[in-house]
């Protein structure tokens, strides 16, 4: 018996659909979003050195969870019914799928745990039995929903999240007299850096002449900067990255300040001010306020995200966001004969709330 065992080996060889096709994320997802939209993943394995006519005795897809989830996800694994499937630079869901499929249900998953599928030999056999299959071709698998409830998504490492934790395909087979089956070319060892995976090719045996060499490393379309002590090539975990282009950030625009006053001795219990912006949409805003009795510079009560109290007087602050301004409010509740000052600091970000 011979065995083929290889992980996804380039960034364009896995991906998932969650409203759009994503082939450069650190993880792939399988399940359904909260609106019931199916989230599916696809995996492509290079250089499958199984000769035509071989008998598949067993085959397993292994996925390592990148996050914990506690709810059941039920899906099917189909093959992509093509001799030498192309990479997943675009959504592969429209490609023909094998008739054979295997149901796989995961009750829950735990991060960093590898999950092995049920035996998918029927799926692999259907592809190998295509009339024009050749040893060394690339083989694809794709998931399909099988009754997952809404808002349940399992996440697994993608190649772009970890080249050593991404999907692994193991196929055991017998048969064929092809030289490739006697001496299958070595599987490229997933390496910690791209330069290592390139430099490994000189060690390949003469079978290189009949087997395509490992696929060239695909470019990474993004920017990641790891925190000290972490390997940027092996993690997509945002807590281990100073910066990752997989994630949005707040885009700081400007800091605005204003101080408004109320004269409780004159009967005022509230005051109002505003700062303007020219963004033309509702921006993400963070506001901080410091409350004084008297003028700014006197002893402040405290920094006050919106509520506080002195001995007998409570005070509140509030704001509202429009497309041109931030209107700021202060008020007191209780008996006072003083002048109150509300000093607001407003941080405006360019992020559009899209409301």
């Amino acid at each position: 018996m011979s065995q083929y065992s290889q992980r996804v080996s380039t960034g364009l060889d896995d991906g998932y659909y969650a409203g759009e096709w994503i082939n450069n994320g650190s993880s792939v997802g399988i399940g359904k979003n909260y609106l019931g939209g199916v989230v599916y993943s696809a995996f492509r394995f290079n250089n499958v050195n199984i000769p035509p006519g071989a008998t598949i005795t067993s085959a397993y897809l292994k996925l390592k969870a990148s996050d914990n989830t506690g709810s059941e996800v039920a899906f099917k694994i189909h093959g992509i019914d093509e001799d030498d499937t192309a990479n997943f630079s675009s959504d592969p869901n429209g490609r023909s799928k094998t008739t054979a499929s295997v149901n796989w249900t995961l009750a829950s998953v735990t991060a960093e745990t590898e999950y092995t599928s049920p035996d998918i030999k029927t799926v692999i056999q259907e592809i190998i039995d295509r009339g024009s299959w050749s040893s060394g071709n690339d083989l694809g698998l794709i998931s399909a929903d099988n009754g997952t409830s809404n808002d349940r998504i399992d996440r697994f490492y993608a190649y772009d999240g970890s080249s050593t934790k991404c999907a692994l395909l193991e196929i055991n087979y017998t048969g064929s007299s092809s030289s490739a089956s006697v001496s299958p070319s070595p599987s490229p060892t997933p390496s910690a850096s791209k330069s290592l995976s390139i430099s490994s090719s000189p060690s390949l045996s003469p079978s290189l002449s009949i087997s395509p060499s490992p696929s060239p490393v695909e470019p990474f379309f993004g920017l990641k900067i790891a925190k000290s002590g972490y390997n940027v090539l092996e993690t997509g975990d945002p807590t281990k990255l100073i910066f990752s282009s997989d994630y949005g950030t707040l885009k700081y625009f400007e800091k605005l300040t204003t101080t408004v006053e109320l004269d409780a001795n004159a009967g005022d219990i509230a005051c109002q001010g505003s700062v303007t912006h020219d963004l033309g949409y509702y921006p993400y805003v963070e506001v901080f306020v410091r409350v004084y009795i008297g003028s700014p510079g006197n002893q402040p009560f405290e920094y006050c995200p919106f509520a506080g109290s002195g001995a007998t007087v409570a005070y509140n602050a509030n704001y509202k966001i429009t497309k041109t301004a931030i209107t700021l409010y202060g008020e007191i509740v209780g008996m006072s004969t003083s002048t109150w000052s509300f000093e607001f600091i407003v941080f405006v970000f360019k992020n559009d709330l899209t409301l």
Partner: protein
Amino acid sequence: MDNVVKVARIGKSANSTDPNDFIFHSLYNTFKIVKEATKVVTLLASTANQSFTEAHNINSYVPLVSAFAKKTGEAWVFLPNGLDVDTFGAKAGLLGDITFNYVASDPNNIIFNFNNDSASTAEVSIRYFLLEKV
């Protein structure tokens, strides 16, 4: 000596030691938004303490949440611990029909809590941001 990537603000020196002089500095984390989405809820009339939940699908930690709300038909956005301020006089308090009492999160869900003092139901759109583990 640390190896760093720095992007200074226009007019500032890349050799500055003040982090405020940098747009980006690899010694300082950027607070990453792991998910942002909009949820629309309908508030019952004349009802306080109305909670709405949304599964966040982040099961490895309880995320910090930042949220903003906008009542359909109004032209301003308000926030947790705040009113949909629509009337304000020099000697009047803050007035509004809807109070966005709080936004909270637990290991599974985000919880949005509102009061609606109006005699009518109200549709509110909430824009929320889930932030990275801290």
